[in-house]
């Protein structure tokens, strides 16, 4: 009996929290379909249902272009960092060479270095290459791997049995073949996790687009959303309906991605934390 009461209370509490976590989405979504005058009322079902806000946003902002820019940057960033991080992780996991542990210690140490320390000089590098104002700085650095993913993927590689690799070696497979044909397919879950994590990080990043992008036509979605807020929120008369509707449009792709990769996301995050 006491058990049952406790279970009911647990469920009630969970439901309460779940509503608190989901409600802002629902409210935002419903507001995006309300006419301007009703945007702030607290009704969930709009009294007057309208697509007007979406048309307004479409006319005010090159959202499709921003989406295309973001997709371009995000896909390149995620694919680049996954391939190179996997290569480096494999280099550290499979081969034995003098200085390996010391070098891997340096990889871990770079993880602790706050990004702000290198922010200014890295900007100056891209500036001297004439790349400021282009999308390149947002993804090209990922061609060199990233410490966190190297760590994650190496852990995974270390957990694989060595026999298939030895067998392939005896059969005459070269190192590249062993890596791409055997090791990578075996570590697919970790590869998917890396892709998803970096996709999310690149899609939601604001600071680097703020630093590197100048012209509205090169903006990514978060940068564009910030520009919309500056223009329609802070710059004179408030046009919340535009900002809110644009927020909905930028959030939806991430939510879809989450539902597609939910299993991997959750597993990836759970394993990240237990390495503490």
């Amino acid at each position, binding site marked *: 009996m006491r058990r049952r009461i406790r279970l009911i209370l647990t469920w009630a509490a969970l439901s309460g929290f779940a509503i608190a976590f989901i409600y802002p989405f629902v409210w935002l979504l419903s507001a995006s379909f309300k006419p301007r005058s009703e945007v702030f009322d607290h009704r969930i079902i709009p009294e007057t249902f309208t697509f007007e806000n979406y048309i307004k946003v479409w006319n005010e902002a090159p959202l499709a272009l921003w989406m295309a820019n973001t997709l371009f940057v995000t896909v390149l960033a995620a694919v680049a960092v996954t391939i190179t991080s996997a290569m480096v992780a494999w280099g550290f996991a499979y081969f034995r060479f003098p200085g390996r542990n010391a070098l891997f210690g340096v990889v871990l140490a770079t993880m602790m270095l706050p990004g702000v320390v290198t922010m200014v000089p890295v900007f100056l590098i891209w500036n001297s290459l004439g790349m400021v104002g282009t999308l390149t700085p947002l993804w090209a650095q990922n061609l060199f791997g990233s410490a966190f993913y190297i760590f994650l993927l190496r852990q995974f590689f270390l957990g694989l049995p060595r026999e298939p690799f030895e067998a392939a070696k005896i059969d005459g497979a070269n190192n590249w073949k062993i890596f791409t044909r055997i090791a990578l397919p075996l570590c697919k879950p970790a590869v998917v996790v890396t892709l998803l994590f970096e996709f999310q990080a690149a899609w939601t990043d604001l600071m680097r687009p703020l630093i590197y992008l100048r012209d509205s036509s090169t903006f990514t979605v978060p940068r564009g959303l910030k520009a919309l807020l500056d223009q329609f929120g802070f710059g004179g008369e408030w046009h919340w309906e535009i900002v809110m509707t644009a927020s909905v449009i930028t959030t939806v792709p991430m939510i879809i991605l989450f539902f597609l990769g939910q299993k991997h996301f959750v597993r990836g995050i759970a394993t990240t934390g237990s*390495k503490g």
Partner: protein
Amino acid sequence: MSASRTKAPRRRRAQWIETRAALLFISPWIIGFLVFTAWPVINSAYLSLTDYDVINDPNFVGFDNYAQLFEDPKVGLALRNTFVFTVLSVPAHIIVSLGLALLLNGATRATGFFRTAFFLPKMTPPVAVGILLLLLFNGQNGLINGFLGVFGIDGPAWTTDPAWVKPGLVLMSLWTVGSSVVIILAALRAVPQELYDSALVDGAGWWRRTLRITVPMISPTLFFLFIVNTINALQSFTEAYTAFFGSGNTTYSNDAALFYAIYLFQQAFEFLHMGYASALAWLLFLVIMAITGVQMLVTRRFVHYEGGQP
């Protein structure tokens, strides 16, 4: 005789082939480390001793930038704001995510749905979270004050009253505890059931079991979250910048939301004080190192590792 003489060079040759292969695989990282970490760190240290502004050549000014840090009232303000936010948000974050994870662990079925519900906000771009902050915590017609009004509470002007800006930011940051909940839940699932069974035999209640078994058993995970969340909180930027800074934003008393990373960004990329910004970056680095170091020393004693210290 001759066989043993050829063996050693052959082994050395095999070792060299393996080393060469390994170096090829890790070469992307080596190049990236030299270009995007090592050189920038050295350059940043040098720049912090100059008055570089991108347009003119840098002049060496010695420790002037560092001296200026102590005289700049905004540095003190930004540090205080960042500390207050960190001190409020990190413990709140851990307590809330631990609470939610315990609840999830206690409910036997359908946790998948709730886990998804708690995790969803984590998928919202931080810019959108900043915008939601302005909407939800709006003093006049925001959802939060509407909710408080149900209980007859007259909510504060969260986004305009300097005293309430940081509490608002802290509360909003709790919306994204999802990943911590998932991490803690995974740790909870790994606690051996036998421990609870024997505690039940001894007649220990729920509180006692949680405090004496659960929390110590998952302490490495809590410790990890504590350190990571602190480092992240000390560098928080996007939500506060979205909501309170940017071009055209003069409506808000945004000094209350001036976090250190925001001030650094402004100095570097709005005022083009690259030298001063580099000095600011090094100060933040030292602060983070010091705080993390102290945290490690203090909390290590409370962290329980199975099979002793690692």
